[in-house]
């Protein structure tokens, strides 16, 4: 079976610079100007056309091998691809299918699951969201209580997921559910794939403090998903979920967000006429160094991942440093604009238009989602520093 559309060429045969120019030309020419650097996550109705274009071009899965319909990029080419996406301010869609489910099924899935699920991910027909957190299982994720009971050829799921990013924009959800209530908490969990249009599922958006509706609650009331949608062994879901966390932490630890924050910061400084202020410039230099050295750490981990080696628990460092750096930048933006620090949305300042709080509202939850900074520190303390437990 062939997956996706054929690649125009073997990208890895190009020089890095030549490849960069090809990618840049595509993004500069075709990505809609009004969607560059949006202050919030975009919905599918807003950026769906762009990603369908990427799908038709065979560029939707730069991280997948060509045999599964991806671009098959080497580590350095993949980095360039992402750098150019970031440079162009190209917003993500709900891309868990590309980033997580695809690589997961390649590693743990059955041939049948790959045949069934990979092609619609490549065409963007299926868009996946993540069903992990629950009202009483946040930092203590393994305490999750959503139940899945094997009944005939199906699993019947009951329970509730929460903080599900862009669930209303997704067609499918991957769910961690308890399949063995008597086992030790990490050992009775399974990893299930569920179409969101299955009867019994209710998605309810959650409005956040920035006024956005990116998050949702997902309720499961006797939801039946085929037993064939179990990924990996029964009760073996925790290991699989953990293997995805490595991917997630390297993504959340990318220098992209703080680099974007630095651009906003400099825009704010110009608007506040502080572009030549020595105190501001010294603070800026400190943050520039934080971001530059985050990039050095990031490339170290990205190289490990690109070699196909497993990421150790030390990768948590990336997520902590990236998000905390981003917060310091966001805080300095507010400090820099002085009396405009409380203005919502786009405001006029110094002849320019800036969104003072865009970085702030993006930065605050970043130290909470994907495993809070405190949880990441707990992981490092235990698994990297080998400090004794209580």
């Amino acid at each position: 079976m062939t997956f996706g559309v054929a690649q125009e060429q073997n990208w890895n045969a190009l020089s890095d610079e030549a490849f960069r120019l090809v990618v840049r030309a595509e993004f500069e020419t075709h990505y809609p100007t009004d969607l560059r650097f949006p202050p919030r996550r975009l919905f599918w109705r807003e950026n769906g056309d762009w990603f369908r274009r990427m799908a038709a071009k065979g560029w939707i899965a730069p991280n997948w091998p060509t045999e599964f319909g991806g671009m098959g990029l080497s580590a350095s080419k993949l980095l360039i691809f992402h750098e150019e996406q970031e440079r162009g301010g190209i917003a993500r869609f709900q891309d868990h299918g590309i980033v997580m489910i695809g690589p997961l099924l390649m590693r743990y899935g059955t041939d049948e699951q790959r045949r069934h699920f990979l092609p619609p991910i490549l065409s963007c027909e299926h868009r996946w969201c993540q069903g992990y957190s629950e009202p009483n299982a946040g930092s203590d994720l393994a305490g999750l209580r959503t139940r899945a009971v094997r009944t005939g050829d199906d699993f019947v799921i009951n329970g509730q997921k929460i903080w599900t990013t862009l669930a209303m924009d997704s067609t499918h959800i991957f769910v961690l559910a308890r399949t063995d209530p008597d086992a030790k908490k990490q050992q009775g969990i399974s990893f299930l794939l569920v179409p969101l249009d299955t009867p019994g599922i209710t998605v309810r958006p959650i409005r956040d403090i920035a006024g956005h509706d990116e998050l949702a609650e997902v309720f499961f009331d006797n939801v039946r998903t085929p037993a064939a949608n179990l990924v990996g062994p029964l009760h073996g879901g925790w290991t699989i979920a953990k293997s995805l966390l490595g991917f997630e932490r390297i993504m959340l630890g990318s220098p992209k967000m703080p680099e974007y924050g630095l651009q906003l910061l400099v825009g704010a400084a110009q608007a506040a006429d502080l572009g030549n202020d020595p105190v501001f410039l010294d603070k800026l230099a400190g943050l520039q160094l934080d971001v530059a050295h985050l990039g050095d750490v990031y490339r170290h981990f990205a190289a490990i991942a690109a070699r196909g080696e497993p990421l150790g628990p030390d990768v948590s460092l990336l997520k902590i440093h990236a998000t905390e750096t981003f917060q310091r930048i966001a805080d300095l933006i507010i400090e820099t604009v002085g009396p405009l620090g409380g203005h919502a949305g786009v405001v006029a300042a110094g002849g320019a238009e800036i969104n003072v709080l865009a970085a702030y509202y993006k930065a605050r939850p970043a130290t909470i989602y994907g495993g809070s900074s405190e949880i990441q520190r707990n992981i490092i303390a235990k698994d990297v520093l080998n400090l004794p437990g209580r």
Partner: protein
Amino acid sequence: MSDEHLTLLESSADAFARIRRAQPISVRVAPFVFECDAWRDIAEQGWLSTLVPESAGGLGLGVLPMTVVARALGRAAERSPVVAVGAVAVPCLAEADDPVCARAVLDAVAEGSRVATVAWQNEHGDIDHLSPSVSAQGEGASVRLLGTSRFVAAPSADLFIVAACEGVGLALYMIPRDAAGLTIVAERCADGSELALLTMDRVRGDAGTRLVGPDRAPGVLRRAIDAGLIATAAELVGVMDAVLEMTLEYLRTRRQFDAPIGSFQALRHRAVDIWMQREIAAAAVTAAGRRFDDPNTPEDDRSAAASGAKSRAASAAMLLCNQALQLHGAMGFTEEYGLGLYLNRALTLSAWLGNAVQHRGRFAVLSPFPGVGEE
């Protein structure tokens, strides 16, 4: 250089560091006296010729390998001036205008029989390599050096490579320690090592002592300083390695309230924070070393990376040492425990060649963010 070579280099440097680390604390905190035996060992390992091109009889390995050696030395809080000589002075000697003439000195320094150091900073410790407070006056055979240079490592050196303003340019002169008119005053640093304050009162500097003339001296000196910055940053990472190891061990074994104190979350999280500081500094140093060794790196990018690494390592090391001291309680404040000698080494190295704030400023100038700063 392959990863395998780097690993070999690291294990030989670690072996040396282990021996030095096994010395009694009383020796390691006593005022540093240049040790000829240790220096011979260091030279025999080839560490002083790491940055000498193969064409000049060196190993031509680059700065990245030097950082591996320096980090191992940092783990022992070793005070022998390996970086000052091997990373800063030797590259200046290797770049002499007349390489044939300078070869004998270069060989002697690389094999450890003579010690050379660079005097480039003015009395204020400015990090602009073009602003020494020594001037070369007169011409030809009657050139005289006048002025002062401070923060010069290895005051017991045989040779001082002195940066002097010459007209509107800069030149490097090689001055023996017994030169008439040269006064050397050693100033004691926190770690028991010394830096020299040189005063030059009409010290003779003729064509034979002018190592590099105004055409090339600014570039040669700047490159040598950048190498020194990256290697010193690596040494600071080594200091961090040792202090982190001591601190984690203490957290695992020290018991209070019937539990190891490393089981308390407040302290665990602080331990993670200082570990992160070490990891980030180590990544910055490695990246800067790679950038230095890449012949395609523009000069400003190289210097920006070097300053960035020094700034990072200096602030990270102080943060880590200060936290380590707190986590150890009163025990860490005793000389006998040995944390102090690393902390004192961190204080010394953080300030040498310019501190974190100075190098953040140099980074900002060399790597300006588009749209801000004076055009």
